[in-house]
C-alpha cells in the first residue's frame, strides 16, 4: 500500500489501539505490525508525535522483569480526536469504495 496513505491513518490506528487500555511501546509496536504491514519501529515516532499533541500521556510503571516500562494513555482530547476522525475515515472509506467498486458498472448505468 502507498506509504503516504498509510502514514496518515496510522496515528488513528495507534489511538484506536490505546482505546482498549493503556499500553507500552513494544506491545503497541507488535499489535500494529501484526495487523498492518509496517516496521516495528514505525509506532515510536507516532507515539512521540501524539504525546506532544497531548492526545496521549505517558507514565512509567514497574514491569515484572527488567526496568520500568513507559506506558501510554489515551487522554480525553485523544478520545475526542479518535471519535471524530474514526467517523470521518469510515465515511471516506465508504465513499472511496463506492467509486472503486462501481467503476465499471457505474459507466454502464449512465447509458
Amino acid at each position: 500500500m502507498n506509504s503516504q496513505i498509510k502514514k496518515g491513518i496510522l496515528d488513528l490506528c495507534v489511538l484506536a489501539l490505546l482505546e482498549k487500555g493503556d499500553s507500552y511501546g513494544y506491545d503497541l509496536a507488535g499489535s500494529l505490525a501484526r495487523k498492518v504491514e509496517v516496521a516495528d519501529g514505525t509506532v515510536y515516532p507516532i507515539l512521540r508525535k501524539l504525546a506532544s499533541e497531548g492526545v496521549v500521556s505517558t507514565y512509567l510503571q514497574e514491569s515484572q522483569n527488567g526496568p520500568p516500562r513507559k506506558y501510554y494513555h489515551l487522554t480525553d482530547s485523544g478520545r475526542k480526536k479518535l471519535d471524530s476522525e474514526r467517523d470521518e475515515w469510515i465515511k471516506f472509506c465508504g465513499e472511496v469504495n463506492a467509486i472503486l467498486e462501481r467503476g465499471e458498472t457505474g459507466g454502464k448505468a449512465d447509458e
Partner: protein
Amino acid sequence: MNKTEYLNRLSNELGHMPYGDVKDIIQSIEEHFDEGLGEGRSEEEIAESLGDPKELAMEFKDGVKFNQIMKKRKRLKDYTGPDGRGRIFVIVFNAFVGIELWLVLLAAIVAAFMFLAGDAGIIGVIVASMILGKITEFLVPFIFLVLTLICVAVFLVVLLFLGIKYYIKGLKSYIRWNKNVWNYGLGED
C-alpha cells in the same frame, strides 16, 4: 546489525535534534530491544523488524517538523486581530529607545567614516610633502607617523565593514521583531 550498532546509527541519523530529544528516542528504542530480548528474540532479529534506522530517524524528524507546523497553525488560529498593547509598545519603545539607539549607532558609523577620511587626508599630505621634498628634517619620525596612520586606517576599514554588516543585520531583525509585536502582541515565543 546488533543493538549497539542500531542505536548508534539511529542517533547519528537523528543529527541536529536537541540532545534531550535524541536521548528520549534512543531510550525508547533501547527499551524495545530489551523487551524483545526478554522474549528470547535475538538483537539482529529485533533490529531487522524495527526497520531501517535511517528511515526511522526520518519519521522522528518528520514528527518534529509536524509539531512546528501545528504550533504555527495554532498561533494563526488563535490570532484574533491586532493586539492594541503590542502596537502601543512598539510606538512608545521606538519613540524613546529604538530609533535613538539606531541613530546613535548610525552617527558612530558616520563619525568613523569621517575619521577615516581625515586619516587618509593626513597620510596624503605627508606623503605628498615627502615626495615633493618639502620635509627635510625628522624624516624617520614622519615615516613612522605615516605607518601608524595607515594601521589606523586599515583598522577603521575593518571596523566599518563589520559595523555596517551587523548594523544592517541587526536592523533587519529589529524590524522583524517590531512587526511581530505589532501584529501579534508581546509574549509570543
